[in-house]
């Protein structure tokens, strides 16, 4: 019975969490995000902000499963549609200007990557509280 209540509570939190924001940026460098300032997030996701304040290389990733939400995020924070964002990186990678963001189909896999990869920042369209437990993250509103 206790477990059922716990599950219901988590589900409730998950839904609230998912509905109340534009997604989550999971990273150990939340202080470097200037409070979620659009310009900084744009620079990170366009590959023009390459090292965190302690010198660690920035490694970018995002979850593509919720295409509508990802579309919204990229339009808001980079000015590109998701398609144009991918084209932007195709050109950048093949012309020798860096490595493309890692694309995850699954939120769990993305969170595990973020937790185990130094310097990473991963965009999640949604995530449960339990999933983010022990991680630093920034809610995008």
């Amino acid at each position: 019975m206790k477990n059922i209540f716990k599950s219901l509570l988590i589900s409730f939190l998950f839904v609230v969490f998912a509905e109340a924001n534009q997604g989550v940026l999971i990273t150990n460098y939340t202080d470097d995000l200037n409070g979620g300032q659009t310009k900084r997030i744009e620079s990170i996701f366009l590959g023009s902000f390459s090292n965190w304040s302690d010198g660690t290389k920035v490694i970018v990733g995002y979850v593509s499963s919720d295409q509508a939400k990802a579309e919204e995020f990229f339009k808001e924070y980079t000015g590109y549609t998701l398609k144009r964002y991918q084209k932007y990186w195709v050109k950048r990678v093949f012309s020798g200007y860096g490595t493309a963001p890692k694309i995850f189909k699954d939120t769990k896999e993305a969170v595990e990557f973020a937790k185990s990869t130094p310097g990473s920042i991963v965009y999640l369209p949604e995530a449960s509280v339990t999933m983010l437990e022990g991680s630093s993250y920034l809610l995008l509103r």
Partner: protein
Amino acid sequence: MIRFKDSLFLRKHSPIRLINLTVIYHTLTKEISLVRKLILLLSFASLIFASEWYKKTTINGYFSHEFERLIDGDKKKTQVSGGGSPDTLGSYDADSFDLVFNFQPTDRVRMAMDIGFEHGTYSEIDKGGLVVEYAFAEYAISDLFKIRAGKMFVPFGIYNEIHTAKPSFVQVKEPTPTNKMYFISNDDYEMIGFFPRWGAGLAVLGNGHIADKPFDYIIMTDNGEREYDESGKRGNEFDKDDNEEKAYTARIRYNPTRDWQIGASFRTDRIGIYEKGKLGDDGIVDKSKDKQYYATHGDILSYGLQSTWNITDTVALEAEYIYGTYKIKEAKYTTKNEATLGIDEFKGQTIKRYGYSIMPTWLVDGDKTTLYFMYAEADPNIKKSQNKVRIYQPGVNIELDTQFHLKLELYNVQTEKNNTKWKGVDYTEFRSSLSFGF
């Protein structure tokens, strides 16, 4: 491992021999045990190393397969020397398969390499080609200041740095009027490009904000292009220069708005050519008349402007314009050594030329199909009348799967009568390609 104890060989031999063999067996067992431990240790270490190496390495790549056929135009007259002729038979071209490696050994050092296998590479019988498009090391001091060393694409305009990566642009091939002057003219001087494909040297690059809007820049110095010498050999400019003058390229791109990027490029280079012949009053060497040496060098200056504009989420426009001069200086010498030193300026001429391309694109059918129409034009020598080449290029690009494109286009070329390559011959070619990026 050989098991000596159970070996028939041991059982069939005398006790003395057996004692000796037992000693050998113990020694060998000890040695093998050590070797085994060493192998295990190395394997373990290499596994750790491999996993670390793997984490710091990214492999991408691209592929392109083409089919082209002349569909309108004179089959004989369109076959010109020096490349660029349409395919009268209709041929498949295993255009390229490239692998792009990025190694990140430290937080600030990146090594990048693009290695391409072109036209079905088969070196034993000299078919196709294996090419290192770029191979460089980059050190990031800050976002505004990074240093690169190695072989790089010359960072000029929109297309040169992506010209081999067909999935990264809409049409089948990059526009020739700005990128392949040797497809526009056959004249020795006019056919020299506004810039070469690659350069070996150093570059500084970076990005930042001006008036709160993002920009990026790159400044590169390299050996410059090397031309053919009198023996018909072409030196390796990625290894050794043929003059003291270094080439310089610079490009800046700025985004006044999120949807609009403008850019400007610049290139200067000195190309040396050493040849035998008689120098005419027109400043051109007639190789059939004399055996004196002439040192010829040309100073290239090219200026480029570019713009990419995402007008709406589905409509975009990209355009590039390049103007350049090629100032040829020729000097007369009696020995090749003097010519190589290149002392006195004797005669000269300056070629002024331009090329541009403009292409609207329209994403229809959700996000899979792009319609495009490219118009491109070049005048390889503005002083000469009736010398231009114009290209009309309508097409469709269908993304069959993620980064997997089918491109179909008509490539209509219209030329003027004084053009040294095409001599007023017009033609239309059907072009298609399958390209994939990963």
